[in-house]
């Protein structure tokens, strides 16, 4: 099984983590248009290759982290605490 590096707990089996969406997508302001809301809610990057993703270490420390993961090779080459 693949090991994911939790910035809080160190390397842990991937099964302990849950995927939670694309990272780096700021929530739009209150005056955002329908199109801006739709872009935020639905239109993800769906990167082929290098991606930044949010994961939750659900069966570990329970904290949200940001992983740099390649969506073709599945190699994880970085992890940091999530910045809201």
């Amino acid at each position, binding site marked *: 099984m693949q090991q994911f590096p939790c910035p809080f707990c160190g390397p842990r089996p991937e099964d302990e983590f849950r*995927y939670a969406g694309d990272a780096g997508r700021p929530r739009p302001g209150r005056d955002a248009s329908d199109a801006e809301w*739709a872009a935020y*809610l639905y*239109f993800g990057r*769906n990167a*082929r290759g290098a991606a930044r993703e949010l994961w939750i270490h659900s069966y570990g420390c329970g904290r949200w982290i940001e992983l740099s993961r390649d969506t073709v090779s599945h190699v994880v080459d970085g992890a940091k605490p999530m910045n809201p």
Partner: protein
Amino acid sequence: MQRYSTWRLIREALRAHSGWVPAWEDRDPEPRYEIVLVGGGGHGLATAYYLARNHGIRRVAVLERGWIGGGNTGRNTTIIRSNYFHPRSAALYDFSVRLYEGLARELNYNIMFSQRGMIEIAHSEADLETMSRAANSMRLSGVDITLIGREQALAMAPLLDPSPGCRWPVRGALMQRRAGTARHDAVAWGYARAAAALGVHIIQGCEVLGFDSVNGRAAAVETSRGRIEADRIGIAVAGNSSSLARATGFELPLHSYTLQAMVSEPVKPCLDCIVSSNTNGSYVSQSDKGELVMGGNLDRCPSYAQRGGFRVTQSVVAPLVEMFPAFGSLRLMRQWGGTVDASPDNSPIIGPAPVPGIYLNCGWGTGGFKAIPAGGTVFAHLLATGTHHPLSAPFDLGRFARGELIDEAHAGVAH
């Protein structure tokens, strides 16, 4: 086109099968077509066929980067059904099932469509209640759905564990009699052969890398085999849709995930319907070769790897073995994955792209094989006329900004 018939078969048998000719011609690209379709899966090929047959447009090319049917169409578990919750989905998928019913004759190609029926098992009182709600909605849409009792479900799949105290007790089932399976390659090949016979060019080993615009309108595709001009371009590349959209400068509400399937070693006929469980996320049918074909939910995070992880393999096989104890003695023979284009509401996206001249057919996710004849029909209509077919209008890309999602959560298990 060389027509296939019993007479032809006998004739060829008598002369050592020396007279068969290739089903379609593998073409080199020409510099210009009226319509270029990107992606030689079921949807691209069916669209090409219906463009030629329904609309008389024959200057059409299908560009496939690998070989036709080598994407999800050739990797899927071939469940064909129309038990969808929302009337707009039921209309689209039921139209597709009806087209499948006449397809072998229409294409003169045996697609081995076998309407063996499907039962989705209710394991609890709560399951039964959810199912009766779903059944009512589907019946209002005219889909042949029946809620059946425990005895009838067990009679349809006698190898199900009948004991009330087992892990997945059978309380009843949602049955669609007209559901079934077909031969996936045959659907791709049958459409390819019929389209080629009408003048469509099928071009394999030709990857589309980007698009060229003139005055803000897409006018050509850049491919690994050169530039090809087109009046209109249709994209039907499933899990690769976001990459092509990005090459043109727009984004799509899709995530690409691995969906996997697996087969057991072949055994004698022991299961003559499709059995699925939304509760434990698995389904099984038996192929004509005798293998048990199994599938379940998406892998756990976005991926373009085209291979599934062991965790999901196990989560599919374990409950099936609990439901069918006899299957526990079989070996798993093969396991594979395809990259599917999951949309936020489990419904497809059909309509014009934000860039004029480009049209989209994507977002079928885990369940677009059943929709190939309908997808081809409505996409051909869109490309030929520039306007939606009534069945595809609700599935336009604009539904996301309008908040008019068609949430097929009931599509449940991925097939």
